[in-house]
């Protein structure tokens, strides 16, 4: 039940963020300072998430050679190819390979 309510909360917020200017504030402009800040939401939040997901329940960072190798190779492939499928395949491939070797 809590899970469903959480999904509805994020769904409502997502709809509002997509709709607020279309539905209500068509003649209002977002202040330039907010527009500048909004560009940095995606990189800052996603990188914070990557780290947060690697933190175990005791608050320790569970990151080893396999994870770091996967990030380096996956990041390079993403940069070169701009292809999510190739990034996922090579990143996970390196992760599994290094984990099997050490």
């Amino acid at each position: 039940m809590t899970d469903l309510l959480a999904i509805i909360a994020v769904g409502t917020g997502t709809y509002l963020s997509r709709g607020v200017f279309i539905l209500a504030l068509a003649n209002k402009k977002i202040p330039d300072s907010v527009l500048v800040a909004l560009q940095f939401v995606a990189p800052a939040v996603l990188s914070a998430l990557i780290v947060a997901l690697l933190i175990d329940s005791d608050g320790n960072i569970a990151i080893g050679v396999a994870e770091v190798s996967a990030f380096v190779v996956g990041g390079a492939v993403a940069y070169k190819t701009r292809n999510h499928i190739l990034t996922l395949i090579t990143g996970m491939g390196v992760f599994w390979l290094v984990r099997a070797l050490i």
Partner: protein
Amino acid sequence: MSPDRSIVKQGIADAVPLFVPAIPFAFVIGVVIVDSGISPVVGWSSSWIIFGGAAQLTLISLLGSGAAVAAAISAGLVVNARHLMYSAAMAPVFQHQPRWMRWIGPYLLIDQQFALAMLRADDDRRTFRTYYLSSGLVFWTMWQITTVVGIMLGPIVPVSWSLEFAVSILFLGLIVMGIDKYPKLIAALVGAGVTYLSAGMPNRAGLLVGAFVGILVGTIAERIRE
């Protein structure tokens, strides 16, 4: 062929290739839903209640990892705050649309839809509407189907594969492909670093601290750059 039909075909033809990059997200969301212990039907409902891959992955991964519900919701909302930009950019186009279209339009306004719709901003009202609904329905339908496939694959994927790590790889890809100037790189590095330093905070609240400081420092770097 009537003009309407050709516009519908155009919308579909433009949407299908743009959906391809979303397929790994859909599969991983499915697997993570199964992994998280959330009921598959509830987990899948996020595909039509939220209809946004990054926010769905964020919310479900965090709920599954034992984060406080409030922290998981906040993170999911912050991830999707970028849609405010899309809403502001599309608002003038939608002012010429009927009321029902102004209510449905935002629901379909995902990243790919925004990219396509902006190119059509100068179309006449009816053409724009037909095109927008055609491409939007393609994205919506394919998203529902591919996340269900992911949920069906979830129980087959062995836990030892640690497929939850795929979420981190996908997010890394999104960051790398989105960096078009150095302040964004700084925002990403600071976001990660501060989250790391606040790892000891309860309920994964460090994530929000890291995200906030990352946005702040990125904004300052942009000011300096200008």
